[in-house]
Every structure is written in structure tokens, then in C-alpha cells.
């Protein structure tokens, strides 16, 4: 293989890089006195925008029923195999509902595929990024933790309708 020629032939002073090194160091030095970006987390909290992908949650419709019909598509598409759904029959028109819906938050990689594939707009990515558990069992979120009233998810759903 022929080595690629440099576009520009550097002269001696450029090649010893002293000037460049000094420039670089001055840049670093300047940065040390710039304002800081750090948010001091427990006191100051990051309020994510609608495009943020926090933990996936299930939408609880206005009438207090989950939208999910337990079709299992999210479970199928999930690249991390995080979702486990068990369907059962309901009296409602949509015929089925998830008797069990579990997301293993240790497996979830927050890719948002589940949200994208859901035919019912029933699973969406929330803004919740505060996920703490102290053992494997706690990391498996059941319906109790997953169901979130739709009011809290409005802007994500709007975002999805606009951009999905």
C-alpha cells in the first residue's frame, strides 16, 4: 500500500509543533476559567425535553384502562429481550389486555424500539431517568410501576405524533 501523501508539506517550525503545543495549552488554560456546565444532581434536576428517552412506561388512558393490548410486538422487537407480556381476555372492545407486563430494567437499553413498534401508542419512553434498585428482582418492573397516567406523557405523545 502506498502511504497517503499529506496535503500540505509542513515546514520545520510547523513540524516541531512547539507553537501548536503552546496554542493548545493556552486553550486548555482558558477553558479552566470558563463557566462550568455541571448540574449538581440531587439538588438541581435535569428536566429532559420531549425527545428524551427515559424508561419505557405504559400509557394509562383517561378512562383508567391501559392502552396496551398485549400484542407482544414490543417484546418481539426489543433487542435486549427486556419485555415479557402475558395476554388475557377482557370484556372491553379491544378483547385483550396484558395480564402481566414486565420490563427488566437491567436488560433495557433505552433504544425506544418498543415505542416505535407499538400499534396502540401504548408504550412510550418517559422522562424518568432515576432508576435505582438493589437487586435483580427489583429491577423487573411490573404493571404497578409501568402504568403512568396519560397526562404525564402528553408531550412525548405529541412529539411522537409529529416525528414518528
Amino acid at each position, binding site marked *: 500500500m502506498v502511504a497517503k501523501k499529506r496535503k500540505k508539506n509542513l515546514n520545520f517550525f510547523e513540524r516541531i509543533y512547539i507553537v501548536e503545543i503552546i496554542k493548545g495549552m493556552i486553550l486548555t488554560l482558558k477553558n479552566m476559567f470558563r463557566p462550568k456546565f455541571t448540574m449538581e444532581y440531587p439538588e438541581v434536576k435535569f428536566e429532559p425535553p420531549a425527545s428524551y428517552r427515559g424508561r419505557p412506561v405504559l400509557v394509562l388512558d383517561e378512562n383508567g384502562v391501559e392502552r396496551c*393490548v*398485549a*400484542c*407482544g*410486538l414490543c*417484546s*418481539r422487537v426489543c433487542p435486549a*429481550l427486556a419485555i*415479557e407480556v402475558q*395476554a*388475557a*381476555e377482557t370484556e372491553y372492545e*379491544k*378483547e*385483550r389486555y396484558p395480564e402481566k407486563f*414486565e420490563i*427488566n430494567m437491567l436488560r433495557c437499553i433505552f433504544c425506544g424500539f418498543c415505542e416505535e413498534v407499538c*400499534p*396502540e401508542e401504548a408504550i412510550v419512553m418517559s422522562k424518568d431517568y432515576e432508576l435505582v434498585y438493589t437487586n*435483580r428482582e427489583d429491577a*423487573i418492573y411490573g404493571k404497578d410501576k409501568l402504568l403512568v397516567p396519560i397526562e404525564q406523557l402528553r408531550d412525548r405523545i405529541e412529539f411522537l405524533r409529529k416525528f414518528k
Partner: protein
Amino acid sequence: MPKIILDGKEIEFKPGQTIIEAARDAGIDIPHFCWHPKLSVSGNCRMCLVEVEQMPKLVISCATLASEGMVVHTSSPKAVEARNAVMEFLLINHPLDCPICDEAGECKLQEYAYAHGRGESRFEEMKVRKEKRIQLGPYIKFDAERCILCSRCIRFTDEIAKSHQLTFIKRGDKVTITTFPGESFDNPYTLNTTDICPVGALTNQDFRFKARVWEMSKTNSICIGCARGCNIEIWVRNNQILRLTPRYNEDVNSYWMCDNGRLNTFKFVNSDSRIDGPFVRRNGLLEKVSWEEALSEASNKLKKYKGNEIAFIGSAYATNEDNFMFIKLAKLLDVKKVMFARHIKEGDQDDILIREDKTPNSLGAELIGLMPINENLLNELFEEISTGKIKVLYIIEDDIFGKYENLKELAKKLELIIVHATNKNITTEFADILFPASTYAEKHGTFVNFQGRVQRIRPAVATVELDRALDGMSMSRWDKFGTPFDRWMQGKKYDAKPSWKILTSISTKLGLKIKYEMAEDVFEDIANTIDEFKGLDYDLISNNGIKIKNKAYEYIK
């Protein structure tokens, strides 16, 4: 043989075959809904339209006889356009139900819509609404909206089940399927319509919403409901059987199986009454012990008795391998009485599939060398037990005490009862040593059906000693990527072993020199020692079974 040219390829056909049949034999699938190889041609779905040169219009390939030199195009622009148009028509009123439809994943409409659909609808009006939850029969739910009116189910009841129970009613977009007034769709074969229904209009009530088809693994096996031995697939998720479906085998069951077999032959596998680990009676109570302990106990106790003090009762539910090892042990102990019980349900037989003999392997048991219990043999047994001549009973995989109630009385006279059983039953209550046997869904083995056909069963459900990956069992995606921490991998595994394995261990303890690692090794021995099985092996039996040589067995009662 005459030939037609299909999409530029020359294929042969048998005179009298239609284009679709000829194509199918050549391995080419022409899209279709209403045509079914085992049903009459109705030609109403128009999906199988193909272009035949020199014919003025497109023709339906299911009703057009192939003739020498015919030139057929299945994917010419005209044919494709016609197919797409048919799809569009079908989808006009078809609900967007796939997410809640059990058929999704194995639905012809879904597949063809994917291949031939437009991807969007030009139809702006409301779809026609029909009733969605009609209880057509005891096991079947009918969704009228999803029905594409192919009439497969009607033709099935007319031609195969011969019960003439279903029909179309009404006209135009109101057409729907129903039973005759006051009748329920309840022949013994109804659930086959859920298999042949190309969409999810007819669904199995028992399996309804239990799982999506892609979540399960499927294993080729044999139904144990009767001596027909229908070929089936066992569908498993989380180590639990969720449904059985028939598997095509022209010589045994074609595409069908009966409702009883489909619904009632798998639930015991995952039931609470399973025996989990070996038990030994201590102070009058059955106590769970280790395998080693139970096996030594059994061999030590058996050693104390003479051959003529022991009676062995094998089983027509057990595989040939199990029964063969049973006889080996009997020979080792010099036991003469080696029998098995038949389970005949008089009159419950038809000329479609169902047989009176409700066991899958009675012919096999007989061929292996067990004596079928008849009146004389039974009386003799009772007699000898009551006089105290027979002191030991060894029963495998059959509820003998449940069948012959007299034995309950005589049990007091017996000094030792060893039982292999899959589930708790009356016999297990009397056992002194109780071994947990693997069910037919947890082991390899062979059955011989009433026609003399040897057929294989394979493990679909893992027991403690089985590992899906290492033992080559079929695996779903979930099985492949699961870890012990995932809930879907935590399905109950029972601590059971196939009877032949238990018997082998006892025999070795009693000094017999055999080394069977797998059921296949036992079968090899069977093939070497028993004439009828000569030359057979698991590979030959394969998926479709093979007829036993020399004799044309027809089961005689």
C-alpha cells in the same frame, strides 16, 4: 410424464392434477386462500389467479387442470396485478386486528398482505362491522369480521368430519358463517378448522391469547390420545406446553387430529399432580428421597424375592424403550409374569381418526413381549396375590389400581409395590417406592401405532436432567438468549427420568452389565433382538415413522 412450463421452468405433472397441485409437487407455492390439498375445490378466493398463454382471461390455478405443454405465468404483470387487486378487496373490510389476533405470525392473509399488499388503503369509508366474539362450538370462538369467506371450514365439516354443521348465511357484505339454528359446532374434529382457517376468524378457545406463535418452540411428536398416534407438534414456552397442532403425515392422520387429543393429552405434563423426585414409604408415609437412595432401596428389596413372587405390569403408555428395559429387568429377576393393561373405550371409534384403544403403544408393548392382561390372567393374578404367592408388584406408567379396583383390597397382602408414574393417581397412593417418570413430552422414544407404524417422540419440555441447548431440544428465541435470571426461563422443571433410565440403573445395581446412554441405544438393542424392529433406527423412523416389516399389522381387539 406430461409437462407444463411454469414461470419458464418445465415441471412434470400427473394427469388429472390442477396447476396449483402440479406446482406444489414441484415445490412452487402459488398464493391461495380457499384451496386446500385435502378439500374439494371451491375457487372463491381468486387469489390463485395465474396467466396461461392462449387463454383469454386469467384462470384460477386451483380449478384449472394442467395439460401437456401449458405455459403458465404466476408472476407476469397481469397475474401480479390481479393478485394485488384481490388482496385489496380482501383487505377492504378486514379489520386491523393483527395485534390482538392469535393467527398473527402464521396468517396467510398477513403474509400475502406483506408480499402483495399496497401498504395503505384507498378505502375511506367505515369498515363493515360484524360480531367479533361468537361462541361457535364448545372450543371455538368465531370472529365474523376477520372471516374472508373462503369456505374451508364449511368444506371441512362437510367432507372430512362429515357433520355438515356449518354454512354461509346472508348476502353481499353481510355474509357470515354460522351453524344451523339450535346446533352447536361440536363434532370431534372441530379444532381442525382453526388450523385450516387461513385467517384468525376461527380460534382455539383453549389457546386463546396464551402466547404469540413466535414466542414458542415447536417439537415434532406423537399424540398419545389413542392408538392412531397422530403426528403432532408440541408448542412450548417457558417450559410449558401451550398447545398441540397436527403435523402432516399422509399415512397416519393427514392434516388432522381430534379435539380430544388436541386438548386433553398435554395438560397433565405441567400440572400440580406431577411427581417431583423419587419417594420411598417410611412409617406409612411417602417421603422424598434422593435418586441414589430410592434406586438402592428398590434394588435391595427386589433382590430378596424369587422370580415367581413378583409380577411386572408394563404399560401401553410407555415407550418401547421403557417396556424393553422392563422386560430386561424381569428376565434378570427371573420374573415370569410380565403384562400390560389395555385401555379400550368400547364404541368410541370412527373411520376418520379416533380409535377405541386409548393408548398410543399397545401394539408396541405386545411386540416387545408384554402379555396383554385378559380375564384369565387377571383372575390368576388376583388369586396369587390373595394366596400370598405373589408378594411384589412392579408397575410402570399406568394407573393399574385405578383400572382394577380389586387390587386396592389386595394391596395389604403385597409386601412391596414399586411404581413409576408421571402424575399422582390411585396407584401411586399404594406405592412403597415411587419413581417419577418423564412424560411423553420429556423424553425420546418410539411408539407403535395400531397400523404397525413405529413413530418417534422427542423431548419438548425439559426436566431437571435435560438442558435445552445441550440436549438439542428445539428452542425459541427466548430460550436461546435467556439467562437463569430471566423470569421466562424459570418455568418449572420436574425431577423425573424416563422409565428406561430408572430401570437401567436398577438393573446395573442388580449386576446386569449394560450401558445405555440414550434412548437410541436402547432402541438399537430392540432392533437387534426383536424381529419386527430389525434394521430400524431413529434416523430411519425420522419424522414420519416407518411401518414394521414382514407383517401387515391391523389391530385386532
